[in-house]
Protein backbone atom coordinates (compact mmCIF):
# COMPACT_ATOMS: atom_id res chain seq x y z
CA UNK A 1 0.00 0.00 0.00
CA UNK A 2 1.40 3.37 -0.98
CA UNK A 3 1.85 5.82 1.89
CA UNK A 4 -0.44 8.89 1.96
CA UNK A 5 2.52 11.13 2.48
CA UNK A 6 6.19 10.52 2.84
CA UNK A 7 8.60 12.99 4.31
CA UNK A 8 12.17 12.49 3.18
CA UNK A 9 15.15 14.18 4.75
CA UNK A 10 13.21 17.32 5.70
CA UNK A 11 15.35 20.16 7.04
CA UNK A 12 14.01 23.57 8.02
CA UNK A 13 15.98 26.53 9.32
CA UNK A 14 15.05 30.04 10.45
CA UNK A 15 17.08 33.18 10.06
CA UNK A 16 16.85 35.04 13.38
CA UNK A 17 18.69 37.88 15.07
CA UNK A 18 20.79 35.46 17.08
CA UNK A 19 21.74 33.27 14.13
CA UNK A 20 20.45 30.42 12.01
CA UNK A 21 18.07 28.20 13.99
CA UNK A 22 18.17 24.63 12.68
CA UNK A 23 14.66 23.70 13.77
CA UNK A 24 14.37 20.46 11.79
CA UNK A 25 17.51 18.56 10.81
CA UNK A 26 16.67 15.91 8.28
CA UNK A 27 13.67 13.87 9.34
CA UNK A 28 11.94 11.15 7.35
CA UNK A 29 8.71 9.31 7.98
CA UNK A 30 5.76 7.84 6.14
CA UNK A 31 2.08 7.87 6.89
CA UNK A 32 -0.05 4.90 5.82
CA UNK A 33 -3.66 5.30 4.63
CA UNK A 34 -6.15 5.53 7.51
CA UNK A 35 -3.39 5.72 10.07
CA UNK A 36 -3.11 8.17 12.97
CA UNK A 37 0.54 9.01 13.43
CA UNK A 38 1.60 10.81 16.58
CA UNK A 39 4.55 13.17 16.56
CA UNK A 40 5.66 13.70 20.14
CA UNK A 41 8.18 16.13 21.47
CA UNK A 42 8.65 19.08 23.77
CA UNK A 43 8.58 22.73 22.75
CA UNK A 44 11.38 23.48 20.34
CA UNK A 45 11.76 19.87 19.21
CA UNK A 46 10.75 20.83 15.68
CA UNK A 47 7.47 18.93 15.66
CA UNK A 48 5.25 21.89 14.76
CA UNK A 49 7.74 23.34 12.29
CA UNK A 50 7.96 20.03 10.46
CA UNK A 51 4.17 19.79 10.20
CA UNK A 52 3.78 23.42 9.08
CA UNK A 53 6.30 22.71 6.34
CA UNK A 54 3.92 20.24 4.72
CA UNK A 55 1.51 23.04 3.71
CA UNK A 56 4.32 25.63 3.58
CA UNK A 57 2.65 27.72 6.28
CA UNK A 58 5.91 28.80 7.90
CA UNK A 59 6.83 32.48 8.24
CA UNK A 60 8.96 34.13 5.55
CA UNK A 61 12.10 33.76 7.65
CA UNK A 62 11.92 29.96 7.35
CA UNK A 63 13.76 28.00 4.67
CA UNK A 64 13.11 24.42 3.71
CA UNK A 65 16.35 22.91 2.41
CA UNK A 66 16.61 21.89 -1.25
CA UNK A 67 17.26 18.25 -0.41
CA UNK A 68 13.97 18.01 1.50
CA UNK A 69 11.16 16.06 -0.10
CA UNK A 70 7.53 15.90 0.94
CA UNK A 71 5.88 13.47 -1.44
CA UNK A 72 2.09 13.64 -1.56
CA UNK A 73 -0.02 12.34 -4.42
CA UNK A 74 3.09 11.80 -6.52
CA UNK A 75 4.24 15.41 -6.19
CA UNK A 76 6.92 17.02 -4.10
CA UNK A 77 5.12 19.66 -2.01
CA UNK A 78 8.40 21.49 -1.40
CA UNK A 79 8.74 22.48 -5.03
CA UNK A 80 5.21 22.73 -6.47
CA UNK A 81 3.88 26.15 -7.52
CA UNK A 82 1.94 28.37 -5.14
CA UNK A 83 -1.22 27.77 -7.15
CA UNK A 84 -0.88 23.99 -6.87
CA UNK A 85 -0.19 24.40 -3.15
CA UNK A 86 -3.37 26.44 -2.70
CA UNK A 87 -5.42 23.66 -4.24
CA UNK A 88 -3.95 21.17 -1.79
CA UNK A 89 -4.38 23.42 1.25
CA UNK A 90 -7.79 22.75 2.68
CA UNK A 91 -8.70 20.50 -0.24
CA UNK A 92 -6.57 17.39 0.10
CA UNK A 93 -4.66 18.33 3.25
CA UNK A 94 -6.36 20.21 6.07
CA UNK A 95 -5.00 21.49 9.33
CA UNK A 96 -6.26 22.06 12.86
CA UNK A 97 -4.27 24.42 15.04
CA UNK A 98 -3.36 24.62 18.66
CA UNK A 99 -5.29 27.61 19.95
CA UNK A 100 -8.93 27.56 18.87
CA UNK A 101 -9.45 30.94 20.55
CA UNK A 102 -7.19 32.76 18.11
CA UNK A 103 -7.37 30.50 15.06
CA UNK A 104 -10.80 31.64 13.91
CA UNK A 105 -11.46 35.10 12.50
CA UNK A 106 -13.30 37.05 15.24
CA UNK A 107 -15.28 39.20 12.79
CA UNK A 108 -16.89 36.53 10.60
CA UNK A 109 -19.77 34.22 11.62
CA UNK A 110 -18.48 30.67 12.13
CA UNK A 111 -20.83 29.14 9.57
CA UNK A 112 -19.49 31.47 6.91
CA UNK A 113 -15.91 30.57 7.80
CA UNK A 114 -16.65 26.87 7.39
CA UNK A 115 -18.60 27.58 4.19
CA UNK A 116 -15.63 29.47 2.77
CA UNK A 117 -13.60 26.26 2.98
CA UNK A 118 -16.14 24.52 0.75
CA UNK A 119 -16.67 27.33 -1.75
CA UNK A 120 -12.94 27.78 -2.16
CA UNK A 121 -12.48 24.21 -3.37
CA UNK A 122 -15.86 23.30 -4.86
CA UNK A 123 -16.72 26.32 -7.00
CA UNK A 124 -19.71 24.61 -8.60
CA UNK A 125 -21.65 24.46 -5.33
CA UNK A 126 -24.46 26.96 -4.77
CA UNK A 127 -24.88 28.93 -1.59
CA UNK A 128 -27.82 26.78 -0.53
CA UNK A 129 -25.84 23.57 -1.01
CA UNK A 130 -22.93 24.95 0.96
CA UNK A 131 -25.24 26.06 3.77
CA UNK A 132 -26.70 22.55 3.92
CA UNK A 133 -23.27 20.98 4.04
CA UNK A 134 -22.13 23.31 6.80
CA UNK A 135 -25.18 22.34 8.86
CA UNK A 136 -24.37 18.68 8.26
CA UNK A 137 -20.75 19.23 9.34
CA UNK A 138 -21.86 21.03 12.50
CA UNK A 139 -24.08 18.07 13.33
CA UNK A 140 -21.20 15.67 12.70
CA UNK A 141 -18.92 17.44 15.15
CA UNK A 142 -21.84 17.63 17.63
CA UNK A 143 -22.37 21.35 17.83
CA UNK A 144 -25.83 21.68 19.43
CA UNK A 145 -28.55 23.67 17.61
CA UNK A 146 -26.52 24.04 14.41
CA UNK A 147 -29.18 26.15 12.64
CA UNK A 148 -28.77 28.80 15.30
CA UNK A 149 -25.07 28.34 15.85
CA UNK A 150 -23.87 28.83 12.28
CA UNK A 151 -24.83 32.50 12.51
CA UNK A 152 -22.87 33.03 15.73
CA UNK A 153 -19.52 34.75 16.01
CA UNK A 154 -16.46 32.99 17.48
CA UNK A 155 -16.60 34.94 20.75
CA UNK A 156 -20.00 33.41 21.45
CA UNK A 157 -18.37 29.94 21.50
CA UNK A 158 -16.36 28.16 24.18
CA UNK A 159 -12.86 26.88 23.42
CA UNK A 160 -14.09 23.32 22.88
CA UNK A 161 -16.87 24.48 20.56
CA UNK A 162 -14.43 26.56 18.55
CA UNK A 163 -12.15 23.56 18.14
CA UNK A 164 -15.19 21.65 16.83
CA UNK A 165 -15.72 24.46 14.33
CA UNK A 166 -12.07 24.07 13.31
CA UNK A 167 -12.56 20.31 12.89
CA UNK A 168 -15.74 20.86 10.86
CA UNK A 169 -13.81 23.30 8.69
CA UNK A 170 -10.91 20.88 8.25
CA UNK A 171 -13.16 17.99 7.24
CA UNK A 172 -15.35 20.06 4.91
CA UNK A 173 -13.66 18.84 1.73
CA UNK A 174 -13.01 15.27 2.90
CA UNK A 175 -9.23 15.69 2.92
CA UNK A 176 -6.95 12.69 2.47
CA UNK A 177 -4.74 13.99 5.26
CA UNK A 178 -5.51 15.91 8.42
CA UNK A 179 -2.68 17.56 10.31
CA UNK A 180 -3.65 18.34 13.91
CA UNK A 181 -1.10 20.55 15.63
CA UNK A 182 -1.67 20.20 19.38
CA UNK A 183 -5.42 20.54 18.93
CA UNK A 184 -6.24 19.73 22.54
CA UNK A 185 -3.42 21.51 24.35
CA UNK A 186 -5.40 24.68 25.02
CA UNK A 187 -8.49 22.78 26.21
CA UNK A 188 -9.32 21.34 29.61
CA UNK A 189 -9.15 17.60 30.10
CA UNK A 190 -12.82 16.68 29.73
CA UNK A 191 -13.13 18.68 26.51
CA UNK A 192 -9.82 17.22 25.35
CA UNK A 193 -11.30 13.77 25.76
CA UNK A 194 -14.41 14.63 23.74
CA UNK A 195 -12.32 16.10 20.94
CA UNK A 196 -10.09 13.02 20.78
CA UNK A 197 -13.13 10.75 20.64
CA UNK A 198 -14.48 12.91 17.86
CA UNK A 199 -11.28 12.67 15.84
CA UNK A 200 -11.32 8.88 16.17
CA UNK A 201 -14.93 8.65 14.99
CA UNK A 202 -14.34 11.00 12.10
CA UNK A 203 -11.27 9.10 11.03
CA UNK A 204 -13.41 5.97 10.87
CA UNK A 205 -16.16 7.71 8.93
CA UNK A 206 -14.06 9.70 6.47
CA UNK A 207 -11.08 7.36 6.23
CA UNK A 208 -8.82 10.37 6.72
CA UNK A 209 -5.22 9.77 7.69
CA UNK A 210 -4.06 11.94 10.56
CA UNK A 211 -0.76 13.41 11.70
CA UNK A 212 -1.27 14.31 15.35
CA UNK A 213 1.30 16.58 16.93
CA UNK A 214 1.46 16.76 20.71
CA UNK A 215 3.77 16.99 23.67
CA UNK A 216 1.48 14.71 25.66
CA UNK A 217 2.33 10.99 25.61
CA UNK A 218 -0.95 10.19 27.37
CA UNK A 219 -2.90 11.66 24.45
CA UNK A 220 -0.76 9.68 22.02
CA UNK A 221 -1.53 6.48 23.92
CA UNK A 222 -5.23 7.14 23.59
CA UNK A 223 -5.37 8.06 19.94
CA UNK A 224 -2.44 7.07 17.77
CA UNK A 225 -1.46 3.93 15.88
CA UNK A 226 2.18 4.82 15.51
CA UNK A 227 4.51 7.38 17.04
CA UNK A 228 7.55 9.43 16.03
CA UNK A 229 9.43 10.84 19.01
CA UNK A 230 11.18 14.10 18.10
CA UNK A 231 13.91 15.92 19.94
CA UNK A 232 16.39 18.58 18.88
CA UNK A 233 15.10 18.61 15.32
CA UNK A 234 15.56 14.87 14.86
CA UNK A 235 13.36 11.80 15.13
CA UNK A 236 14.90 9.74 17.95
CA UNK A 237 12.48 6.85 18.03
CA UNK A 238 9.76 5.46 15.82
CA UNK A 239 7.39 2.69 16.90
CA UNK A 240 3.84 1.34 16.85
CA UNK A 241 2.03 2.63 19.91
CA UNK A 242 1.94 -0.63 21.93
CA UNK A 243 5.60 -1.33 21.27
CA UNK A 244 6.59 2.14 22.32
CA UNK A 245 4.94 1.80 25.70
CA UNK A 246 6.10 -1.79 26.24
CA UNK A 247 9.68 -1.38 25.05
CA UNK A 248 10.62 2.26 24.97
CA UNK A 249 13.99 2.11 23.25
CA UNK A 250 15.45 5.55 23.67
CA UNK A 251 16.50 7.11 26.98
CA UNK A 252 14.54 10.24 25.99
CA UNK A 253 11.32 8.25 25.47
CA UNK A 254 11.92 6.50 28.78
CA UNK A 255 12.36 9.88 30.42
CA UNK A 256 9.09 11.13 28.94
CA UNK A 257 7.26 8.09 30.26
CA UNK A 258 8.68 8.45 33.75
CA UNK A 259 7.33 11.98 33.73
CA UNK A 260 3.69 10.98 33.03
CA UNK A 261 1.58 11.33 36.18
CA UNK A 262 -0.37 8.18 37.01
CA UNK A 263 -3.20 7.85 39.52
CA UNK A 264 -2.19 4.32 40.43
CA UNK A 265 1.38 5.24 41.23
CA UNK A 266 2.05 5.25 45.00
CA UNK A 267 2.15 8.77 46.32
CA UNK A 268 5.51 8.22 47.91
CA UNK A 269 7.08 7.80 44.46
CA UNK A 270 7.91 11.18 42.99
CA UNK A 271 7.48 12.10 39.32
CA UNK A 272 10.76 12.16 37.48
CA UNK A 273 11.22 15.23 35.36
CA UNK A 274 14.05 15.09 32.81
CA UNK A 275 16.82 17.31 34.21
CA UNK A 276 18.30 20.07 32.03
CA UNK A 277 16.73 21.89 29.10
CA UNK A 278 16.45 21.31 25.34
CA UNK A 279 19.47 22.18 23.20
CA UNK A 280 20.05 25.59 21.66
CA UNK A 281 19.16 25.02 18.03
CA UNK A 282 21.33 27.82 16.71
CA UNK A 283 24.22 25.60 17.74
CA UNK A 284 22.90 22.04 18.14
CA UNK A 285 25.14 19.42 19.77
CA UNK A 286 27.33 17.49 17.37
CA UNK A 287 26.22 14.12 18.66
CA UNK A 288 22.91 12.81 19.94
CA UNK A 289 20.87 15.93 20.84
CA UNK A 290 19.71 14.26 24.08
CA UNK A 291 23.24 13.35 25.18
CA UNK A 292 23.76 16.38 27.52
CA UNK A 293 20.66 15.35 29.51
CA UNK A 294 20.96 11.58 29.14
CA UNK A 295 21.70 9.59 32.31
CA UNK A 296 23.26 6.81 30.22
CA UNK A 297 25.41 8.99 27.96
CA UNK A 298 28.85 7.71 26.98
CA UNK A 299 31.71 9.32 25.18
CA UNK A 300 30.59 8.16 21.73
CA UNK A 301 27.20 9.87 22.18
CA UNK A 302 28.76 13.33 21.89
CA UNK A 303 30.83 12.46 18.82
CA UNK A 304 28.17 11.96 16.17
CA UNK A 305 24.44 11.47 15.72
CA UNK A 306 23.65 7.76 16.03
CA UNK A 307 21.95 6.03 13.12
CA UNK A 308 18.64 4.24 13.50
CA UNK A 309 18.97 0.78 14.98
CA UNK A 310 16.06 -1.51 14.34
CA UNK A 311 14.39 -2.92 17.46
CA UNK A 312 11.69 -4.85 15.62
CA UNK A 313 10.09 -4.70 12.22
CA UNK A 314 8.44 -1.29 12.63
CA UNK A 315 10.39 -0.10 15.62
CA UNK A 316 13.67 1.79 15.40
CA UNK A 317 15.64 4.11 17.62
CA UNK A 318 18.67 6.35 17.36
CA UNK A 319 20.70 5.16 20.36
CA UNK A 320 24.23 3.75 20.41
CA UNK A 321 23.37 1.61 23.42
CA UNK A 322 21.09 -0.56 21.28
CA UNK A 323 24.04 -1.68 19.18
CA UNK A 324 24.75 -5.38 19.70
CA UNK A 325 28.37 -4.44 20.29
CA UNK A 326 27.54 -1.88 23.01
CA UNK A 327 28.84 -2.87 26.45
CA UNK A 328 26.13 -4.77 28.34
CA UNK A 329 26.97 -3.33 31.74
CA UNK A 330 24.99 -1.69 34.56
CA UNK A 331 24.82 1.58 32.69
CA UNK A 332 23.07 0.14 29.64
CA UNK A 333 19.29 0.33 30.13
CA UNK A 334 18.75 -2.14 27.31
CA UNK A 335 20.95 -4.96 28.55
CA UNK A 336 18.10 -7.23 29.65
CA UNK A 337 16.49 -6.96 26.22
CA UNK A 338 19.09 -9.21 24.68
CA UNK A 339 18.00 -12.77 24.28
Amino acid at each position, binding site marked *: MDPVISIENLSVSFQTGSGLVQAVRGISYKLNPGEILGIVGESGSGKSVSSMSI*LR*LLPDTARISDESKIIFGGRNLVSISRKEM*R*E*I*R*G*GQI*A*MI*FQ*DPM*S*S*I*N*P*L*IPVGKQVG*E*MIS*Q*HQHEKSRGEIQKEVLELFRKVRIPEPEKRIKC*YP*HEFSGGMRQRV*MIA*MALANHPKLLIADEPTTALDVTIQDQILKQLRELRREYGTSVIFITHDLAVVAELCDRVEVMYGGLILEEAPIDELFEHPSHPYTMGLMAAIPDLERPRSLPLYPIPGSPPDMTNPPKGCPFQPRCPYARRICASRVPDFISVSEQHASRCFLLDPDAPQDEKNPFKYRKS
Partner: protein
Amino acid sequence: MAYIAKRIGMMLLALFIIILLTFVIEHSIPGGPFTSDRKVSKEVEEALEEKYHLNDPLPKQFLDYLTGILHGDFGPSYKYTGREVSEFIGEGFPLSAKLGGITVLFVLLASIPMGILAAVKNGKWQDMLVMTLATFGVTIPSFVIASILIYVFSFRLGVFPSFGLDSWKGYILPVITLGGYSLSYLARQMRSSLLEVMGMDYIRTARAKGLTEVQVIFRHALRNALIPLVTVLGPTIANLLTGSFVVEQIFALPGLGVYFVNSVSQRDYTTIMGVTIFYAAFLLAMVFLVDVFYVLIDPRIKFD
Protein backbone atom coordinates in the same frame (compact mmCIF):
# COMPACT_ATOMS: atom_id res chain seq x y z
CA MET B 1 -30.99 51.18 22.29
CA ALA B 2 -30.75 51.92 26.00
CA TYR B 3 -27.02 52.20 25.33
CA ILE B 4 -27.55 54.85 22.67
CA ALA B 5 -29.87 56.82 24.96
CA LYS B 6 -27.28 56.60 27.72
CA ARG B 7 -24.52 57.72 25.40
CA ILE B 8 -26.57 60.69 24.22
CA GLY B 9 -27.28 61.58 27.84
CA MET B 10 -23.58 61.45 28.64
CA MET B 11 -22.85 63.57 25.59
CA LEU B 12 -25.29 66.26 26.68
CA LEU B 13 -23.80 66.23 30.16
CA ALA B 14 -20.29 66.60 28.73
CA LEU B 15 -21.48 69.42 26.54
CA PHE B 16 -23.11 71.17 29.51
CA ILE B 17 -19.86 70.97 31.46
CA ILE B 18 -17.94 72.34 28.48
CA ILE B 19 -20.38 75.27 28.15
CA LEU B 20 -20.15 75.94 31.89
CA LEU B 21 -16.35 75.86 31.89
CA THR B 22 -16.07 78.06 28.79
CA PHE B 23 -18.48 80.53 30.34
CA VAL B 24 -16.69 80.61 33.69
CA ILE B 25 -13.27 80.98 32.11
CA GLU B 26 -14.40 83.77 29.80
CA HIS B 27 -15.88 85.67 32.70
CA SER B 28 -12.95 85.20 35.05
CA ILE B 29 -10.08 86.37 32.84
CA PRO B 30 -9.10 89.95 33.48
CA GLY B 31 -10.19 92.70 31.13
CA GLY B 32 -13.58 93.00 29.49
CA PRO B 33 -14.77 92.96 25.91
CA PHE B 34 -14.87 96.73 25.82
CA THR B 35 -11.52 97.36 27.46
CA SER B 36 -9.35 99.31 25.06
CA ASP B 37 -6.51 101.80 24.96
CA ARG B 38 -8.92 104.66 24.58
CA LYS B 39 -10.54 105.80 27.77
CA VAL B 40 -14.26 105.23 27.63
CA SER B 41 -16.47 107.30 29.87
CA LYS B 42 -18.25 105.62 32.72
CA GLU B 43 -21.66 106.32 31.17
CA VAL B 44 -20.75 104.69 27.87
CA GLU B 45 -19.37 101.64 29.68
CA GLU B 46 -22.52 101.30 31.75
CA ALA B 47 -24.68 101.73 28.68
CA LEU B 48 -22.75 98.97 26.92
CA GLU B 49 -23.05 96.65 29.91
CA GLU B 50 -26.72 97.39 30.06
CA LYS B 51 -27.11 96.65 26.35
CA TYR B 52 -25.37 93.25 26.56
CA HIS B 53 -26.88 92.37 29.98
CA LEU B 54 -23.41 92.26 31.51
CA ASN B 55 -24.67 93.82 34.73
CA ASP B 56 -27.01 90.92 35.43
CA PRO B 57 -25.87 88.44 38.11
CA LEU B 58 -23.60 85.75 36.56
CA PRO B 59 -25.97 82.77 37.12
CA LYS B 60 -28.71 84.66 35.30
CA GLN B 61 -26.32 85.49 32.46
CA PHE B 62 -25.38 81.81 32.24
CA LEU B 63 -28.99 80.66 32.20
CA ASP B 64 -29.83 83.19 29.49
CA TYR B 65 -26.82 82.04 27.49
CA LEU B 66 -27.81 78.40 27.86
CA THR B 67 -31.40 79.08 26.80
CA GLY B 68 -30.04 80.96 23.82
CA ILE B 69 -27.87 78.02 22.76
CA LEU B 70 -30.86 75.70 22.94
CA HIS B 71 -32.46 77.96 20.34
CA GLY B 72 -29.31 78.04 18.22
CA ASP B 73 -28.53 81.54 19.43
CA PHE B 74 -24.96 82.12 20.59
CA GLY B 75 -25.60 85.77 21.36
CA PRO B 76 -24.42 88.94 19.61
CA SER B 77 -20.84 89.64 18.64
CA TYR B 78 -19.23 92.20 20.94
CA LYS B 79 -17.02 93.51 18.18
CA TYR B 80 -19.22 93.68 15.14
CA THR B 81 -22.29 95.59 16.11
CA GLY B 82 -25.50 94.07 14.87
CA ARG B 83 -23.90 90.72 14.00
CA GLU B 84 -24.76 87.42 15.64
CA VAL B 85 -22.21 84.70 16.52
CA SER B 86 -24.42 82.12 14.86
CA GLU B 87 -24.12 84.13 11.64
CA PHE B 88 -20.34 83.75 11.76
CA ILE B 89 -20.68 80.01 12.26
CA GLY B 90 -23.24 79.89 9.48
CA GLU B 91 -20.86 81.73 7.14
CA GLY B 92 -17.61 80.05 8.08
CA PHE B 93 -18.63 76.46 8.73
CA PRO B 94 -20.02 75.46 5.32
CA LEU B 95 -16.77 76.40 3.63
CA SER B 96 -14.64 74.68 6.27
CA ALA B 97 -16.90 71.64 6.16
CA LYS B 98 -16.80 71.41 2.37
CA LEU B 99 -13.04 71.69 2.25
CA GLY B 100 -12.82 69.33 5.23
CA GLY B 101 -15.20 66.82 3.68
CA ILE B 102 -13.15 66.66 0.50
CA THR B 103 -10.02 66.33 2.62
CA VAL B 104 -11.56 63.47 4.66
CA LEU B 105 -12.37 61.61 1.44
CA PHE B 106 -8.90 62.26 0.08
CA VAL B 107 -7.25 61.16 3.34
CA LEU B 108 -9.25 57.94 3.60
CA LEU B 109 -8.94 57.00 -0.06
CA ALA B 110 -5.20 57.60 -0.02
CA SER B 111 -4.05 56.54 3.46
CA ILE B 112 -5.70 53.12 3.59
CA PRO B 113 -4.36 51.88 0.22
CA MET B 114 -0.96 53.40 1.06
CA GLY B 115 -0.90 51.59 4.41
CA ILE B 116 -1.98 48.32 2.79
CA LEU B 117 0.68 48.64 0.10
CA ALA B 118 3.38 49.36 2.66
CA ALA B 119 2.34 46.41 4.83
CA VAL B 120 2.07 43.96 1.94
CA LYS B 121 5.43 45.07 0.52
CA ASN B 122 6.97 45.17 3.98
CA GLY B 123 10.65 46.06 3.71
CA LYS B 124 10.57 46.58 -0.06
CA TRP B 125 10.93 49.91 -1.88
CA GLN B 126 7.16 50.57 -1.91
CA ASP B 127 7.18 50.35 1.89
CA MET B 128 10.21 52.63 2.13
CA LEU B 129 8.58 55.19 -0.16
CA VAL B 130 5.29 55.27 1.76
CA MET B 131 7.01 55.41 5.12
CA THR B 132 9.35 58.20 4.02
CA LEU B 133 6.43 60.27 2.71
CA ALA B 134 4.47 59.54 5.88
CA THR B 135 7.36 60.61 8.08
CA PHE B 136 7.62 63.91 6.20
CA GLY B 137 3.86 64.38 6.48
CA VAL B 138 3.84 63.85 10.22
CA THR B 139 6.92 65.93 11.00
CA ILE B 140 6.74 68.92 8.65
CA PRO B 141 4.29 71.60 9.86
CA SER B 142 1.41 72.39 7.52
CA PHE B 143 2.48 76.00 6.91
CA VAL B 144 5.82 74.78 5.60
CA ILE B 145 4.12 72.24 3.36
CA ALA B 146 1.75 74.98 2.16
CA SER B 147 4.63 77.34 1.39
CA ILE B 148 6.48 74.70 -0.59
CA LEU B 149 3.34 73.70 -2.49
CA ILE B 150 2.53 77.30 -3.35
CA TYR B 151 6.10 77.99 -4.41
CA VAL B 152 6.28 74.95 -6.67
CA PHE B 153 2.75 74.66 -8.06
CA SER B 154 1.54 78.26 -8.06
CA PHE B 155 4.65 80.36 -8.40
CA ARG B 156 6.97 78.15 -10.46
CA LEU B 157 4.67 75.90 -12.46
CA GLY B 158 1.53 78.01 -12.23
CA VAL B 159 -0.78 74.99 -12.41
CA PHE B 160 -2.82 75.59 -9.23
CA PRO B 161 -3.97 78.91 -7.77
CA SER B 162 -2.42 80.01 -4.50
CA PHE B 163 -5.70 81.28 -3.01
CA GLY B 164 -9.46 81.05 -3.32
CA LEU B 165 -11.78 78.20 -4.23
CA ASP B 166 -13.14 79.41 -7.56
CA SER B 167 -12.60 76.12 -9.43
CA TRP B 168 -11.70 72.55 -8.51
CA LYS B 169 -8.07 73.49 -9.01
CA GLY B 170 -8.29 75.80 -6.02
CA TYR B 171 -9.05 72.88 -3.72
CA ILE B 172 -5.96 70.84 -4.50
CA LEU B 173 -3.29 72.65 -2.53
CA PRO B 174 -5.47 73.37 0.55
CA VAL B 175 -6.65 69.74 0.65
CA ILE B 176 -3.08 68.42 0.53
CA THR B 177 -1.95 70.89 3.18
CA LEU B 178 -4.92 70.22 5.44
CA GLY B 179 -4.85 66.44 5.00
CA GLY B 180 -1.09 65.90 4.95
CA TYR B 181 -0.75 65.12 8.62
CA SER B 182 -3.82 62.90 8.92
CA LEU B 183 -2.93 61.10 5.72
CA SER B 184 0.55 60.29 6.96
CA TYR B 185 -0.64 59.35 10.42
CA LEU B 186 -3.40 57.07 9.18
CA ALA B 187 -1.15 55.44 6.57
CA ARG B 188 1.37 54.55 9.29
CA GLN B 189 -1.42 53.25 11.53
CA MET B 190 -2.87 51.19 8.72
CA ARG B 191 0.51 49.69 7.92
CA SER B 192 1.39 48.69 11.48
CA SER B 193 -2.13 47.47 12.19
CA LEU B 194 -2.24 45.30 9.06
CA LEU B 195 1.24 43.92 9.75
CA GLU B 196 0.12 42.94 13.21
CA VAL B 197 -3.05 41.27 11.96
CA MET B 198 -1.12 39.37 9.24
CA GLY B 199 0.77 37.61 12.01
CA MET B 200 -2.42 36.37 13.70
CA ASP B 201 -3.35 32.71 13.94
CA TYR B 202 -6.60 33.18 12.02
CA ILE B 203 -4.62 34.48 9.05
CA ARG B 204 -2.66 31.24 9.06
CA THR B 205 -6.01 29.40 9.18
CA ALA B 206 -7.19 31.42 6.18
CA ARG B 207 -4.02 30.50 4.28
CA ALA B 208 -4.48 26.85 5.26
CA LYS B 209 -7.87 27.00 3.54
CA GLY B 210 -6.15 27.59 0.23
CA LEU B 211 -7.08 31.26 -0.14
CA THR B 212 -4.88 33.50 -2.28
CA GLU B 213 -2.92 36.25 -0.54
CA VAL B 214 -5.32 38.82 -1.98
CA GLN B 215 -8.31 36.94 -0.55
CA VAL B 216 -6.55 36.56 2.79
CA ILE B 217 -5.91 40.31 2.98
CA PHE B 218 -9.29 41.55 1.78
CA ARG B 219 -11.57 38.95 3.37
CA HIS B 220 -9.78 38.27 6.62
CA ALA B 221 -7.11 40.81 7.47
CA LEU B 222 -8.45 44.19 6.39
CA ARG B 223 -11.53 44.44 8.59
CA ASN B 224 -9.56 43.40 11.63
CA ALA B 225 -6.83 45.88 10.79
CA LEU B 226 -9.33 48.73 10.40
CA ILE B 227 -10.61 48.50 13.99
CA PRO B 228 -7.73 50.44 15.60
CA LEU B 229 -7.99 52.96 12.76
CA VAL B 230 -11.63 53.72 13.47
CA THR B 231 -10.64 54.91 16.95
CA VAL B 232 -8.59 57.79 15.61
CA LEU B 233 -11.02 58.45 12.77
CA GLY B 234 -13.61 60.34 14.87
CA PRO B 235 -11.32 63.08 16.17
CA THR B 236 -9.53 63.22 12.81
CA ILE B 237 -12.74 63.81 10.87
CA ALA B 238 -13.98 66.38 13.39
CA ASN B 239 -10.63 68.11 13.18
CA LEU B 240 -10.63 68.27 9.38
CA LEU B 241 -14.26 69.36 9.04
CA THR B 242 -14.06 72.21 11.50
CA GLY B 243 -11.34 73.81 9.46
CA SER B 244 -7.82 74.88 10.11
CA PHE B 245 -6.77 78.43 10.80
CA VAL B 246 -3.39 77.90 9.18
CA VAL B 247 -4.74 76.53 5.93
CA GLU B 248 -7.58 79.06 5.72
CA GLN B 249 -5.20 81.90 6.46
CA ILE B 250 -2.54 80.85 3.93
CA PHE B 251 -4.98 80.19 1.09
CA ALA B 252 -7.20 83.15 2.06
CA LEU B 253 -10.32 81.08 2.58
CA PRO B 254 -13.05 82.61 4.78
CA GLY B 255 -13.67 79.51 6.89
CA LEU B 256 -14.57 79.03 10.52
CA GLY B 257 -10.94 78.83 11.62
CA VAL B 258 -10.31 82.40 10.50
CA TYR B 259 -13.36 83.66 12.42
CA PHE B 260 -12.19 81.79 15.51
CA VAL B 261 -8.66 83.14 15.58
CA ASN B 262 -9.79 86.67 14.76
CA SER B 263 -12.26 86.53 17.63
CA VAL B 264 -9.48 85.56 20.02
CA SER B 265 -7.18 88.40 18.97
CA GLN B 266 -10.08 90.87 19.09
CA ARG B 267 -11.41 89.59 22.41
CA ASP B 268 -14.81 88.95 20.89
CA TYR B 269 -15.93 86.89 23.88
CA THR B 270 -19.22 85.57 22.60
CA THR B 271 -17.66 84.47 19.34
CA ILE B 272 -14.84 82.63 21.14
CA MET B 273 -17.38 80.87 23.34
CA GLY B 274 -19.78 80.13 20.55
CA VAL B 275 -17.18 78.63 18.23
CA THR B 276 -15.56 76.67 21.08
CA ILE B 277 -18.90 75.14 22.03
CA PHE B 278 -19.70 74.42 18.39
CA TYR B 279 -16.34 72.63 17.97
CA ALA B 280 -16.89 70.65 21.16
CA ALA B 281 -20.39 69.57 20.16
CA PHE B 282 -19.12 68.52 16.75
CA LEU B 283 -16.27 66.49 18.22
CA LEU B 284 -18.59 64.76 20.68
CA ALA B 285 -20.95 63.89 17.86
CA MET B 286 -18.15 62.41 15.74
CA VAL B 287 -16.82 60.33 18.63
CA PHE B 288 -20.34 59.07 19.21
CA LEU B 289 -20.71 58.12 15.54
CA VAL B 290 -17.40 56.26 15.70
CA ASP B 291 -18.60 54.27 18.69
CA VAL B 292 -21.74 53.30 16.81
CA PHE B 293 -19.63 52.40 13.78
CA TYR B 294 -17.49 50.15 15.98
CA VAL B 295 -20.48 48.00 16.82
CA LEU B 296 -21.20 47.63 13.13
CA ILE B 297 -17.74 46.32 12.25
CA ASP B 298 -16.86 44.39 15.41
CA PRO B 299 -19.43 41.84 16.58
CA ARG B 300 -17.62 41.46 19.91
CA ILE B 301 -18.69 44.95 20.93
CA LYS B 302 -22.30 45.18 22.00
CA PHE B 303 -24.58 48.10 22.83
CA ASP B 304 -24.46 47.57 26.60
